[in-house]
């Protein structure tokens, strides 16, 4: 075996998986995992840990995998992460742990994500649960939102003995893990539900169908006896381009398209919620959400395009998602920007007018700014357009909570180290604070919020 190469992971054939919603990647089996684990050289000064937003003791858990003690490996990961089966699947490892791996300088880095996933899946199959608090302290904390930030914060606080209730606006918990990331990338019942059950096993209560900011306010939560509140309500507000024709039938936000499919299971005919899947679909954007929407449309039978105004190098999605999308047959129209949605007389999309772009000088984000190429206008023949341009925080909570300040992007202002907001007893983290980011960064913020709340309630 070539020690410079990682143990390849088995995947569903691209042609087959392009027609189903089952998970793309099969993950390692025991033998493969141990084999991959032995590539780790157990650095004295492990860079991978520095690359992990929640600071998992990576060489520590990998050593346990080498020894074949997967239960011990799971407990090591659980000390830092409440959702390992999810992170092993959706973290951008190439820019985090694996990006820092010494092995990666010459050859492939260790497949840390795949090993993490293996350990978490093993724990699930063998019913190993995270360690519960020995004694509850009788203090009540409310967590708003059951996405990665909320689940992590709730899990950490429960481990410290707090009585935690999560309030979720939708009818199922999980936030973006449930409504946003598709089944083929993150299986709902096998993985997401399982991780949620683990958090519940720590004593956390989840109350669905409560929209804080509408059903009740944060001040009313304090009146009901909660002593601290963590806001992990995410960034749910979709952006549109503001181009002509955008309200035509057949133009969707990626949020709508994905929610119909993931949360409401429109792909399954036995569910009542319909989806206008489209025969030729253009997805506008280059992030993970754009890839998810494109690969969903593809699986629903559409010829699918990614329309992105910058180039290949600038695509912000995880490398693996772009690679998978291409393998499955998504057509990439890079350096292309829509200017108008063409509409037929019945109000439906009949095409997408676009211009070609070229890259100019770097802009504020450090990426080269795309500029329009003269005379390059053309029409993409599509019947459906999905806007995946990013999301911003929902103002429902900030607009109904006195003393809770936001910045000009409507993001809640909170200390990075402990999640403290401008309102006493209220902490926040995740996309609600940073704007749309990743699952793991939301988890990091959830952990910080739990630390902040623990400190606050311990000193009262």
């Amino acid at each position, binding site marked *: 075996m070539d020690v410079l190469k990682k143990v390849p992971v088995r995947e569903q054939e691209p042609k087959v998986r392009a027609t189903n919603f089952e998970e793309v990647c099969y993950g390692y089996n025991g033998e493969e995992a141990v084999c991959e684990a032995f590539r780790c050289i157990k650095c004295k000064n492990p860079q991978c840990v520095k690359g992990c937003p929640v600071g998992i003791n990576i060489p520590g858990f990998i050593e346990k995998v080498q020894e074949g003690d997967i239960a011990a490996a799971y407990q090591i990961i659980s000390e830092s992460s409440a959702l390992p089966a999810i992170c092993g699947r959706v973290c951008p490892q190439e820019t985090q742990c694996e990006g820092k791996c010494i092995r990666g300088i010459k050859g492939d880095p260790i497949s840390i994500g795949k090993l993490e996933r293996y350990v978490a899946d093993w724990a699930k199959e063998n019913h190993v649960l995270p360690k519960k608090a020995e004694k509850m302290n009788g203090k009540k904390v409310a967590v708003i939102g059951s996405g990665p930030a909320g689940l992590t914060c709730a899990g950490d606080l429960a481990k410290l003995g707090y009585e935690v209730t999560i309030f979720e606006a939708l009818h199922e918990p999980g936030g973006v893990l449930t409504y946003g990331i598709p089944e083929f990338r993150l299986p709902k019942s096998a993985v997401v539900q399982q991780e949620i059950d683990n958090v519940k096993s720590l004593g956390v209560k989840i109350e669905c169908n409560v929209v804080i900011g509408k059903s*009740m306010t944060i001040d009313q939560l304090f009146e009901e006896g909660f002593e601290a509140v963590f806001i992990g309500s995410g960034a749910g507000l979709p952006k549109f381009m503001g181009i002509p024709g955008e309200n035509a039938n057949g133009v969707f936000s990626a949020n709508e398209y994905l929610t119909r499919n993931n949360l409401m299971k429109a792909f399954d005919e036995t569910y009542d919620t319909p989806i206008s899947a489209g025969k030729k679909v253009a997805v506008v954007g280059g992030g993970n959400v754009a890839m998810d929407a494109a690969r969903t449309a593809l699986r629903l039978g559409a010829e699918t395009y990614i329309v992105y105004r910058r180039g290949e190098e600038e695509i912000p999605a995880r490398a693996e998602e772009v690679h998978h999308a291409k393998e499955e047959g998504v057509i990439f129209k890079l350096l292309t920007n829509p200017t108008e949605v063409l509409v037929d007389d019945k109000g439906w999309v009949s095409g997408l007018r676009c211009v070609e772009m070229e890259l100019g000088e770097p802009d504020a984000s450090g990426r080269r700014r795309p500029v329009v190429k003269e005379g390059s206008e053309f029409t993409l023949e599509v019947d459906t357009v999905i806007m995946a341009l990013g999301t911003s925080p929902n103002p429902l909570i900030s607009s109904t909570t006195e003393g809770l300040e936001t910045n000009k992007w409507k993001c809640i202002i909170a200390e990075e180290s402990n999640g403290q907001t401008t309102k006493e007893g209220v902490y926040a983290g995740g996309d609600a604070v940073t704007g749309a980011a990743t699952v793991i960064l939301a988890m990091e913020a959830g952990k910080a919020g739990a630390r902040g709340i623990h400190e606050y309630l311990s000193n009262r």
Partner: protein
Amino acid sequence: MYKILQAEMLTDVTALMVVEAPRVAKYCNPGQFVIVKLDEKGERIPLTICDYDREAGTVTIVFQAVGASTKKMLELHSGDAFQDFVGPLGCASELIDKPIEELKRMKILFVAGGVGAAPVYPQVKWMKEHGVDVDVIVGARTKELVILEDQMREVAGNLIITTDDGSYGRSGMVTKVIEDLYAEGRKYDICVCIGPVIMMKFTCLLTKKLGLPTIVSMNPIMVDGTGMCGACRLTVGDQIKFACVDGPEFDGHLVNFDEAMKRQQMYKTQEGRAMLKLAEGDTHHGGCGHCGE
């Protein structure tokens, strides 16, 4: 689960249900809506609140069977339950924020079309409870489709019923009644009009001519109802608004009703397919003109 305490058919396709939902009942106000979901596989259905009882912890909803989920909901009885019932969502009617003395000085006209009588009712009731007398026009296609007449009569200062076919009350559409009232010398300061989009459109065309400010309540296609999906977007003046969080009530003279009507047609084919499947079960194998087989 959210228990149904009372279920009553108002017409062949319209039902009224009183549902146990203490959190919603505690905090809701006229003009707001809830989202109900029958069971695991059901759609999320937005429904404007028809009535509420804070002490009993109940919320009353009225709905018409238009798709697969609402048709199944029609079969529910007292003692059954909804799996999900979330709210209150959206903004409350702006009128209830006005000082009572000002409301008492105003001449207010409520216009309800068809099932629109349900969302109009809690607003009129609120007015009555605060000592404000208002005029109410309830319009329907025909006598059998007039709903909540007794309840409305109890709370309206002056109730006028009209049917398109003249089978009950006055004869003609609500716009004709408004014209007649103005011809009789009546004048109003504000109109609240709730009903089918086409009815709101024509009412607004008329009230614009009459210089009568008009508030409408929009009920477009929605998924989450919390501002997340944008399915419910409308053009109001030169702005894009989400009915779920910015509304559901808007200045009727600024709403682009034609676009709203087109957007409402979006899932008509799919709904038709689901309805047929529901009606015919496994025996349906194409030929309906909807399923492309």
